[in-house]
Structure formats: structure tokens, C-alpha cells
């Protein structure tokens, strides 16, 4: 078991955002968490990182309880985050962004990892000296993913990577998720509103509603579940054509 959440609660001030969430991610899996706006998806993701800290329950990563660890210590255990809204370092160059992603890594690995990222995202090599804030949304998302991968994480958390992107980039992002998992064996926890794409790429999925897991199953099961279909996949038909 790579990551396990047991009865996790979280609060934003007085707002009780998560009501006892149980969730697990096995080594080598892509697990997706879908849900409507405000269901608590991003809160769940961030509370794994201690932002906000879980107010109840336990978060175990690789056999270690990380519930009370500081955010940077959690990252140092080998979890990387591609945050919602990308949060790249706008005024720094693409190369500097990637370097920041590698602060934890071995100095000696930097050149190799950089080459790997450039192979995965050729556009980043082209733009390496450009200010990250001048990239297009899709390119910024690629940069955010590459930056997260620079520290050679064991587990990658992706928070709404398709948000606000053009359809072509959405497709590309999910291709990359698949490739990272299938070819590089990366374990991924993916939070998405784009349920159709997310469930197709995931081994397993969870549906979050009002801060609680209401459904869980394999990606295929959830895709075929009539409730999921009605709630999250209507309007996903257009996407299916891709």
C-alpha cells in the first residue's frame, strides 16, 4: 500500500470540508477522485500535504504516518504535487522552475532528469530560457508536471490538470498520465472534474460528494455506473469522440 487515508477529516476555519474519507492507492496504480465543484477534492489533495492539516483520521504513506508532518517534510518522503491552477513560478524561467523542482534531488541526477523531462515535453526544451508566465496554459501545465517529476517522486498527485485547457491539451495531458503510469511505473492520484477522461485512464476511482466518498470501484465500473453517468458524465459525450 503506497498511500492510505483512514477516516480523514479536514476543516477550513469553521467549514467542515472532509467528513471521514477513506481512500487508498496501491503501488503502480492510477487512482482518480471525481466529484462536483466544492465536493472537497482539492481539500483532500491538499490535506495529504498538510494544507490544511487533517483534523481527524490518519494518512499513511509507505507505512509511515505522515498526518502530523510539515508540508515540506511530506514532500521529502517522495510525494510530488501538481497543484490546482499549476502554481508555476511565473517570473522565473522554465529551466529555473525545473531546477526548483529538483532541489530535493541529487545534484548529480539533475542533467539526466532534465533530459528525461525534455524528452517527455519537448516544448519545455524549446522554451527553457523563457519566463514561465509567458507560456500558454497547456504548456504551463506540462511545466508543472515536469517540475513535480524532477524530484523523482514515488507518488504523483495531480490536482485538476485539465482545468481550463484547450481540448487538444486535455487529451495530451491524459496521454501523459497514461504514459507515466504504463511506461514509467509512476503511481498517480488524479483529482478531476473531467470524469470521463479520468475514469478511462484510471485503474480505480472514487466519487466524492459533500466531503464524503459515496462510490468506489474500478474505472470501468464507475464509467458504467448509471448514477455516475447521470451526475458526472452527461456532457462528457463530446469528449468521448476524442
Amino acid at each position, binding site marked *: 500500500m503506497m498511500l492510505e487515508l483512514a477516516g480523514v477529516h479536514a476543516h477550513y476555519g469553521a467549514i467542515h470540508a472532509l467528513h471521514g474519507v477513506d481512500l487508498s492507492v496501491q503501488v503502480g496504480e492510477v487512482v482518480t477522485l471525481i466529484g462536483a465543484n466544492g465536493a472537497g477534492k482539492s481539500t483532500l489533495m491538499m490535506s495529504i500535504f498538510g494544507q490544511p492539516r487533517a483534523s481527524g483520521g490518519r494518512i499513511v504513506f509507505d507505512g509511515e504516518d505522515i498526518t502530523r508532518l510539515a*508540508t515540506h517534510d511530506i514532500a521529502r518522503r517522495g510525494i510530488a504535487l501538481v497543484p490546482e491552477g499549476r502554481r*508555476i513560478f511565473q517570473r522565473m524561467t522554465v*529551466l529555473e522552475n525545473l*531546477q526548483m*523542482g529538483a532541489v530535493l534531488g541529487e545534484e548529480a541526477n539533475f542533467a539526466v532528469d532534465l533530459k528525461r523531462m525534455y524528452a517527455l515535453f519537448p516544448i519545455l526544451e524549446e522554451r527553457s530560457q523563457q519566463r514561465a508566465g509567458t507560456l500558454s496554459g497547456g504548456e504551463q501545465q506540462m511545466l508543472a508536471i515536469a517540475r513535480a517529476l524532477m524530484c523523482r517522486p514515488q507518488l504523483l498527485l495531480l490536482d485538476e490538470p485539465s482545468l481550463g485547457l484547450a481540448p487538444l491539451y486535455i487529451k495530451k495531458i491524459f496521454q501523459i498520465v497514461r504514459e507515466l503510469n504504463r511506461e514509467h511505473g509512476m503511481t498517480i492520484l488524479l483529482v478531476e472534474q473531467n470524469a470521463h477522461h479520468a475514469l478511462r485512464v484510471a485503474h480505480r476511482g472514487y466519487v466524492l460528494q459533500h466531503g464524503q466518498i459515496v462510490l468506489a470501484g474500478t474505472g470501468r465500473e464507475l464509467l458504467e455506473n448509471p448514477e455516475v453517468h447521470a451526475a458526472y458524465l452527461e456532457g462528457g459525450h463530446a469528449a468521448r469522440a476524442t
Partner: protein
Amino acid sequence: MNTLVIARQPTSPAERLRDAAATALIALLLGIPMIGLTTVDQGGVLRVASRWPALLAFVAACFAGRLLLRYASDLLRARRLARETAAEATTGARPAAGGALLTGIGWAALAVALLLPIVFSDNRYVVDTATTVLIYVMLGWGLNVVVGLAGLLDLGYVAFYAVGAYTYGLLSTQLGWGFWQALPVAGAMAAAFGIILGWPTLRLRGDYLAIVTLGFGEIIRVILVNWTEMSGGPNGITSIPRPSFFGLPFKPPGDAPTFASFFGLDYSPNQRLIFLYYLILGLALLTNLFVSRMRRLPAGRAWEAMREDEIACKAMGINARNVKLSAFAIGAMLGGFAGVFFAARQGFISPESFTFNESAIILAIVVLGGMGSQLGVVLASLVLVLLPELGRDFAEYRMLLFGAAMILIMIWKPGGILAHREPTLRHRRPGDGR
């Protein structure tokens, strides 16, 4: 995008002529009753007289003026457009060009700084003012670490300047320490105060942080005013020893060897001024070197990343607390060094030198210069120190001029005089090693 560009394209000469002709026609129609015809009093009888040449001149002036106006506005628009396209095209190879120019300017400025006291060796006023500029350059570079790089708005920076100055003042007058002995101690002292300020404010950002730092600056000043036994209160500390040239004092010839007698020179009070100038120049250059090296290290780059996005930094495993504290401590240390120099140069310090006004000026230097830009700080210091000096002729309108200049700079260059940011990492070919 395309339609936008077409719409903004300058008008053709024919269009401009047509436009000017239309203006001339309107001028003619308006001008006939207003200029062309006039009444003249002729022996008690009002008669209408004509002034056709004047009307002609008026219409011609309108025609030419309109033509010129359109031409000028088109020119401005074309230039703005060219600048925008250039900014859009800033990809891959481009940033290096701006950087090279700035590096050139930087070296030229250094050459001027080195030669200045030689050229103006008997002009006290110039050397003295240049020394003041350099103090502000150094303070600006120090505050730049905190505000420009780490993005922590500090309105009480003068506190560290004061800590450095008083540490040297006390160490030298009470314990007889020399300038060079006291310098590192005062720097460490200021850094410690930086951490004292940084620790409780770790969770604060933006305006909230600004308020706390503002208060901190005032606390230090109020302590200096009121703790009379320690600081001498409002009277300050007097007769602080001046720095010596490796043990050789700058004094009129006496029993002990002095700087002038040792080098076989005639004594001149300007020698000390010039020495002080080179001293602050050296300190400032060391500061610059130190800060630009720091920027290229992961620890320093983390300052900038922290400014950009704190949460992303933490998620990358960066300890936000250490990064912020190091920025506060290093910024404070540099301010402390400048304070030591200030005390040594003035020979007298009092709380009056360390008011909020000073903090505001240092912050203005950083902001006007362009946050994070080292060369920008130099230019802004020049402007902010020289402007009030040059404006002495304007007497009480001096500060008005000063304020207006600051506003104009911010309108003209909202990102500061030099908003260009030099990348800290260049692309290396794979296999270069790292």
C-alpha cells in the same frame, strides 16, 4: 489578433492629408465669422471689415497642426506596437540580448565609480554626495534581498541600519574596537535582529507583514530614544572613531605615523573622504557579488520561488521557514554593514537618522529600481539622492519635485526603471555535468 493589428496600423499619408483637409474646412467655416470678419469703429459707425490674410493663416495653421498631430500619434502608436511585438517575440534566444546590454552598463557604471574620486579629488561635495549615493545603493541591495527577491514587504528596514550603526558606535566608544573588528560583529547583530523580526512574522504576508515590520522599525527607534544609559537617548553617540587605513589614521602630521606621513603625501582632509568613498564602494561591491552569487545557489533561488508561490515551494520540499529567515537575516546583515559604515563616516549617530522616512526612501529605491534588479537599485539611488541635491535651488518646492519625479517614474515604468530579470540558470548542453 490579426484584425487587432490591422486596426492599429498607422494611417496612410493620403488619409492623413484628407483628415487634415477636413480639419481645415471646419477651421474655415468657424473662422469666417470669428476671424475673417470683424467690426471696426469708424467715426462712431460700426462697419464690417474683412481680414482674409489672418483667416488664411489660421486655416493653414490648423491644417499643419492636424497633420503633425496625426503623424505624431501614429509614430507613438507604431513604436508601442513594435515594442509589444518585440515583447511577444521574446522567446529562447532573446533574453540574453537585454542582459548583455545591462551587463555593459553595469561595468561602465563601475568604471565611473572607480574613477570619480580621482577626477574630483579636490571637490569635497562631489565625493561626499557620491558616498551618500553608495550608502543607499548598499542599503538598496540589502533590502532587495528581502523585498525584491523573497517578496517580503519590509517597511522597517532602517532598524537593521540602526542596529549596525549603534553596535559599532558602542563597541568603538565603550570597548575601543576598531572598524574592521566591529564590522562582522555588527553584521551578526543585525542578522540576529533580522531573525528576531522574521520569526514571529513567518505566517504573515503582504500588508500584514508590512504593518508588523513598520512597527518593528519604530520599536527600535523608540528604544534608542528612551534607553538613555545604553544609547545616549536623543543625544546619540558622539566622537565615534573614524576608520583607519590599516592602522594609519587620517590626521594632520603628529608623533605617530599617519596615512599622509607614511606615504609621503601632504596631509589633506580630502584623503579621508576619498578613503571612505572607496571603502563604501568596496563594501557595496562585495554586497553585490554576494547577493548575485546567492541568487545562483539553490538557497537563493528558493527566495524567488517563495516570492512567486509559497505553497508550490512547500510542496517541493522547501522549508519555507528557513528560506524566509535566511532572507531576513541576510538582508538585515547587509543593512547592518551599511550602518557601521554610516556611523564611522558621520562620527556621530542619533535616533534621528533612523526614522521611518529612511525606510521609505530605501524601499522607494528598491521599487523604483525594479524589484530584484541590482543595477536598477543603483539607478534609483542616483535619482533619489541626486534629485533633492540638484533641487536645492528650488528651496521649498524641492520635495514637491521629488514626489512628482517618483510618480512619473512609476507611470512611465510601472515595473521600475529596470524590470528586466536576469535568469539565474543558463541552459547547458547535456553532458556538461553539473
